[in-house]
């Protein structure tokens, strides 16, 4: 391919088969090597008549190849060669699916509204800092199929599995603390994720559970739910987030995550949470830009149309058998 990047003459035009341009001189070879046409199409009069016609001021018959006829043939040939070379422009890049389901579960219990964090130099709630870090993280997961779960006493699906990562990230803006209850039930959120994914296509399944770790309620025990998650290949990454996380809570979350083959991460401030997000991003890489294909817009039609017009003109000129 030639003409990559800015393309030919900076017009963004590329040639898919540039070698075809090497065919441009082929007509010279055809004229030189191919057997000559029989002269029947250019009748010449008998010698005596030709002399008589000459006396009338006409050599008789048409010239074998009028310049305009040659111009049409050259025009058609050039147009066909360019069409064969495959001129194209490239459109926007298409998303390459990672094959991963990424579920973000956000703790919306009352403890997330504690103002023990700092954001841009000011006191902020845990949830505000969480949103500040997680929203761009989620929006950058192009290729993943992402879903967002909000949980507290209950768990509910905020954003269903979608490849529109921008839309999923935007749903974080609409979450509010305490909406699904005031207390924390980790098992509910894990159970909802399991229910959502059990009929989904096979693939890598990763659940990020952001909580301050103060699990204080649960009909479905988090360990039991984690066992169900492990059964469908859902890896659980528990992220403990708060200025102070009790060691027993951290140990509990690590144990739950370990059931699924996942792990526990801890962040005490915004920087810590950003570091955790970075680490998880590295653990769950996305398809690189080099894997992204671009739409192709074929530009050969105008050249083919020009060749067709040239052919029609030649046929018109040849309608009487002349050349």
């Amino acid at each position, binding site marked *: 391919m030639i003409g990559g990047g800015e393309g030919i003459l900076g017009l963004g035009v590329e040639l898919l088969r540039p070698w075809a341009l090497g065919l441009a001189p082929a007509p010279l070879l055809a*004229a030189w090597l191919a057997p000559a046409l029989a*002269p029947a199409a250019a009748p010449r009069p008998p010698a005596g*008549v030709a002399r008589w016609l000459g006396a009338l001021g006409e050599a008789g018959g048409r010239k074998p190849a009028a310049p305009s006829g040659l111009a049409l043939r050259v025009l058609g040939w050039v147009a066909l060669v360019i069409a064969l070379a495959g001129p194209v422009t490239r459109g926007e890049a*298409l998303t390459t699916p990672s094959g991963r389901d990424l579920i973000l579960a956000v703790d919306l219990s009352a403890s997330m509204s504690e103002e023990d964090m700092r954001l841009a130099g000011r006191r902020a709630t845990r949830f505000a800092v969480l949103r500040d870090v997680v929203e761009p993280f989620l929006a950058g997961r192009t290729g993943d*199929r992402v879903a967002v779960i909000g949980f507290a006493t209950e768990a509910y699906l905020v954003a269903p599995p979608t*490849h529109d990562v921008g839309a999923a990230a935007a749903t974080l803006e609409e979450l509010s603390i305490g909406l699904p209850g005031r207390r924390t039930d980790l098992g509910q959120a894990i159970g909802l994720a399991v229910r959502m994914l059990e009929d989904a296509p096979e693939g890598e399944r990763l659940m990020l559970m952001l909580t301050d770790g103060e699990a204080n309620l649960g009909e479905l025990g988090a360990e039991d739910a984690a066992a169900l998650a492990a059964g469908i290949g859902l890896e659980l990454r528990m992220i403990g987030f708060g200025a102070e996380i009790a060691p027993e809570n951290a140990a509990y979350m690590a144990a739950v995550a370990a059931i699924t083959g996942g792990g526990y991460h801890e962040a005490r401030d915004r920087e810590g949470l950003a570091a955790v997000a970075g680490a998880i991003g590295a653990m769950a890489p996305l398809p690189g830009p080099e894997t992204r294909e671009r739409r192709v817009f074929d530009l050969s039609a105008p050249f083919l149309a020009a060749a067709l017009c040239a052919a029609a003109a030649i046929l018109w000129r*040849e309608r009487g058998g002349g050349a």
Partner: protein
Amino acid sequence: MIFASPFWLLALPALAGAAWLLRRGGGLATTLPGQWDRLIDPALRGPLARRLGAAGGARRRPALAAAALTTLALAHPVIGAGDVPAHPDLVGRVLVIETAPGIDPGPQRRLAERLLGPGAPPTALVAAAGEGYDVVPLTEDRAHLGRYLAVLSDAVMPEHGRRPAAGLAHAEATLARAGAVVAQTVFLPAAAPPGGAVAESAGRSLRVVLAHDDALRRAWRETAAAWGARLAGPEDLDAVRGDLEAALTEEAATRLPGGATDLRPWLAAAAAACWLALFRRRAEA
């Protein structure tokens, strides 16, 4: 195999007719070359001219063949166009449910549910009231879509009123944000268009105004035309689905790498081979 630009095939009968005329009549000539007319009896000129023309097919045949192959190349035949590559942002449909005070959204819901059946593309839900609102992003989770569809009504809208064009614009923005390449917006009106509903809304999706009864359909004719939308009713759902499928097939056939095998280069090469015959020299008599 499909033809991505089938209208070019209309040129083939014309070419076939020209070939038949040239073959049958020895050309379309009725006059003799040069000043032979001054020498030949007028009654003989036509037949003689056609006979001379018949002998002159050495360049017409390759020109005709090249023209036919070029026409086929323009029609853009592709094989395997049904194999759409897996790109998650390739296709999307947004259902825009309009709500209006005092109007039961039940008929709209039922119509929308029929578009959520098996095989539906990733679908988003937008509500149109005084503004356009995201309800569900593009997803294949039909259960989730169904749950939200079931509770959509004017009562839950943050801003009441009727601004259909705002709903349409919101749908277009949803599709643009998701990067959907082949996109369809299906607007399900609640009632006859309010004043000002005809406001144009830029966008690149295929648009449909899907009315649940004939009276509504008639009422929306002018607005649908202004929006560049197909005006459809419950009996047209297959056509609505077909619009998106056809656009997806064309996209896969012509613009997606690996989407199909393009026969155009092969036909162009064959046309070029025929064209070379036009450069053969004439032998001296």
